[in-house]
């Protein structure tokens, strides 16, 4: 396959950055998108040029590190797929592909296609946990959980924190991510003691980080590689309002 790539190049956080054109010839259909970039980088290195910097880790769709906006859609047009799991057979010979970093004020570009997503870590530190003493696991049947809740909680817990929802949102809102992280606990008994404090603290941190407001475009849901439903955003809205009026503690 021959492809014409336009890739965002930016030396560092201060650099203005620009799109640069890279023709690639020797692309195999069964390569993943990241392998295709590896091939390009090897060529660039041989030519003595600076390779394109991009984030990746597991390359099996579970870590959330790979973060590319491909032809204007985070993780590309393939539904429910991370960039690392997107294969070149989904493209046609001769295609032009635009590759840009995730865009959001809260995700500043570090270099080329790499962005700083530590805003998500700070949101998790604000409340994305439960406080329990470690020790022996308790007898599973002593804590009954309705099947429906267990399933919904697992749906929410599928979020890998990749940030595609923010990148896809025209407002750079982080509502899908935060709502998934809030709901996975709000649906389970273990999450109840800190439920109100959690949603208030996480939303508060989300707003401090400079993410936008939700306008119900539902672009996040469309881009999410784990197909997290915007239904969790509605759940979080409810949870947040109830907690605002009933939780007396300032967070």
């Amino acid at each position: 396959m021959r492809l014409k790539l336009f890739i965002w190049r930016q030396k560092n956080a201060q650099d203005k950055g620009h799109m640069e054109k890279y023709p690639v010839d020797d692309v195999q259909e069964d390569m993943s998108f990241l392998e295709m970039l590896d091939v390009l980088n090897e060529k660039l290195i041989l030519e003595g040029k600076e390779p394109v910097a991009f984030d990746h880790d597991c390359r099996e769709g579970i870590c959330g590190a790979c973060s590319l906006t491909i032809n204007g859609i985070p993780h590309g047009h393939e539904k429910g797929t991370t960039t690392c799991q997107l294969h070149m057979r989904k493209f046609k010979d001769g295609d032009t592909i635009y590759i840009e970093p995730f865009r959001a004020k809260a995700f500043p570009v570090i270099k080329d296609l790499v962005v700083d997503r530590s805003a998500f870590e700070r949101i998790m530190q604000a409340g994305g946990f439960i406080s329990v003493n470690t020790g022996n696991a308790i007898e599973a049947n002593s804590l009954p959980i309705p099947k429906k809740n267990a399933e919904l909680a697992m749906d929410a817990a599928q979020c890998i924190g990749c940030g595609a929802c923010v990148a896809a949102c025209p407002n750079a809102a982080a509502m899908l991510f935060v709502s998934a992280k809030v709901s996975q606990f709000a649906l389970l008994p273990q999450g109840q003691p800190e439920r109100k404090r959690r949603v208030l603290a996480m939303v508060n941190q989300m707003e401090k980080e400079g993410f936008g407001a939700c306008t119900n475009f539902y672009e996040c849901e469309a881009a999410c590689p784990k197909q997290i439903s915007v239904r969790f955003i509605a759940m979080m809205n409810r949870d947040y309002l109830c907690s605002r009026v009933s939780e007396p503690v300032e967070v």
Partner: protein
Amino acid sequence: MILINYLKSTILSKFVMAITGVILVLFVIGHCVGNLQVFLGKDAFNSYAYFLQERLGELLWLIRIGLIAAAVFHIITSVWLKFLNWGAKPTKYQVKNYVKARLTSRTMIWTGIMIFAFLTYHILHFTMGVVHPEDYNKTDYYVTNAVSVDKVNNGTLNDTEGSDECCAEGTATNAKESIINYNGSMYKVEGDEPILSERHDAYAMVISGFQKPLVSILYIIGVILLGFHLNHAIQSSFQTLGYNNPKYFPKIVAGSTILSILIVLCYIAIPISILLGLVGGRV
């Protein structure tokens, strides 16, 4: 300041958008039903207008203040959020593809601002009579203490002509149960003496307003823009207020589209029928 403290939270801001929006939607529906009475004729429409303007008394101002407050908060919050959202995405993509966002959802602020402009014109036109004052300054004479009857079989007819002042005078001394003729309509007098009263002729105002094609077109455009706004807004308010059940939400989205189309059709039926001369052909 305490009134706008909620702006610090994006979720609270969205609640305010949704709640004020729902208040405005309810008004839009009520207003539509009221306006459709123009198809029932002059008397029905003018007594409805009279009821709103004169009978409601303080309640009218309470409703007006509520609606103005809802609109003010809706607009302040929407502009605030728009600037916040622009700020959150300072660098745009060189190439952007939308998957689920639609034209209606992406243009909310612009349809909103145009609705605001249209609303201002509409209030200056039909509520305050500032633009096109010739439409506004019309008086309707009507008979009180009497009910209109379509067919008069054996009543005594006062052979008065339909000129404005004479009739009520002429029948003022009539006994109970007499039938009078005013402006070609028959009225059966009940109880006390019939009185000739004056009221604002809202019907003639609407007719002469919409008989101007340019005015009608402006209203039609304004209402279609409102339809675009509502198409996204109605379902959006459910999501914002925390109701998104996978079983019913697709129906809510469809209902949002159907309701917004219905509202547009009902509203534009009025200027279109008047332009075509189907209503109020002779004012």
